[in-house]
């Protein structure tokens, strides 16, 4: 079985924010939420690096460990999803996540402003509803995985900095790039998300 992972090649990312836009568009992400974002370190300084980051779909996911209603689950593909019908909006997953992936819903929606069902990147794999159903789309966005497609962010990345897919395939691609450019590997965020041995 494939083990889905994200990898962002910091040598290639040009901070175009295309991934952010693609995600918002394909999933119809509500106002105020960006499931993916691009962070530039040392912005404006020679050698600046940009990284596109969303939920990394951790192996031993901290969000799942702290959720009071245990509503996270890992799919057979290794995608970490959560059930919005069960979520009570406590925000603990947001406290626990190393990558700032889970987010409070948009401010206009309810009392206490931003407290409500959390939203996060689904690896374009929808949610616990019937795959491809309207209910699934409204709550979680597109289920491209069910259609045999990869996440929209990586699919449209112009420089192919952002890769999504089976971890083994990704590391092969990345290893080849490293050999060609004779650089040091920087599998950004992998150790944090997938453990020390990747």
């Amino acid at each position, binding site marked *: 079985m494939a083990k889905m992972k994200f990898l962002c090649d910091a040598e290639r990312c040009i901070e175009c924010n295309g991934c952010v836009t693609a995600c918002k568009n394909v999933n119809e992400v509500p106002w105020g939420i960006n499931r993916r974002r*691009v*962070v530039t*370190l040392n912005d404006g300084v020679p050698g600046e690096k940009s990284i596109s980051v969303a939920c990394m779909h951790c192996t031993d996911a901290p969000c799942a460990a702290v959720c009071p*209603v*245990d509503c996270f689950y890992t799919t057979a593909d290794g995608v970490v999803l959560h059930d919005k019908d069960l979520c*009570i909006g406590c925000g603990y997953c947001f406290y626990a996540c190393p990558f700032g992936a889970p987010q409070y819903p948009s401010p206009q929606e309810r009392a206490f*402003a931003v407290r409500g069902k959390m939203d996060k990147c689904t690896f374009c794999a929808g949610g616990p509803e019937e795959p491809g159903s309207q209910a699934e789309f409204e709550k979680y966005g597109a289920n491209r995985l069910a259609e045999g497609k990869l996440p929209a962010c990586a699919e449209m990345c112009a420089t192919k900095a952002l890769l999504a897919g089976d971890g083994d395939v990704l590391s092969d691609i990345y290893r080849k790039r490293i050999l060609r450019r004779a650089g040091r590997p920087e599998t950004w965020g992998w150790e944090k998300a997938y453990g020390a041995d990747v």
Partner: protein
Amino acid sequence: MKTSNNPARDGDKGRRRGRIALLAFLGTIFLVVALPLTGYLVVGETAAQAQQEAVNPLSEFWRGARQANEGYTAVTAPQANILITDSGQNWRQVRNGPLATYGAWLMILALVALAALFLLRGRVEIDNGPSGKTVERWTLPDRILHWYTAVLFILLAITGLSLLYGRAVLMPVMGPEAFASYAQAAIYVHNYLGLFFAIGLVLMVLKWLRVNIPKGHDLSWFLSGGGMLKGKHPHAGFVNAGEKLLFWTLAVAGLAILVTGVILLFPQLGQSRDVMQISQVVHAVASILVITFIFGHIYLATVAMKGSMAGMVGGRVDVNWARQHHDLWLKELEQHGVKPETASTKPEKESQQEPRPAAS
């Protein structure tokens, strides 16, 4: 060498020789220790050189990124400019580990201890039985404030503990769907009523602050275990030392619960995740501490001490109960000329009653 006949000069010479020997000895030791150390001078320099070569600015860069270095992002969300933080993982370990484990043990052991105490000591009756005469202890506003805060406290404690322990305790019994809908209700109750509880707590702390200022006789109250160790009941004013301890615990931990609760309640105030993680731990630790104290408080007020509840329910307590538990207060009342009334007659002239003197 020519030996002298002069014993004094011989002694001088001997001393000088001794000094030389000592210096030589120390010098040898110094060399033995210092010579090999000189190796470090050389190695140190090369190691420093090697290290200078080893420092890769890029690895420093990524190390910084892993330690929550801030960058720039076009997305406007709290702390969206941070790539990775470790603090969440630490928070997870504290909350799911020692916090939940020791918290549960503390509360369970407190309940067991109280049950054991009850089996050992039973119910403390009023000395010489009820006298039939009562004095006013808690005014109506005091009682309203007490029960308002108490009911909210219990609701908050149950709903809060459901969030911390429900997944382990309730979910296996109720199933995920039923537990999630209960938890959703619980979190609404907790979040809305928390603000009302905060009002009650602050008013209570302010209103009862004066009578709870510690006094000299409080120490002897503690030393006699509140009357449990020695047969004779220790002196106590309007509130005894144990009640003062409860008051101050509630005041300090309660205010901590309040402040951290508000921080957690409104994530849009711009507080960082780190602040929320710490707040959650403080909130839960302080809550568990106060809940444990309240267990003791409820035990003493209901099952352990006969005659205590009357004061907080009807407002009046039996004179004999007052003499037994709050002798200094009763004395003060008598000095102020407060006349105990017979229990059966309703105190309709409540407004005319002497104001309650402050605690001794």
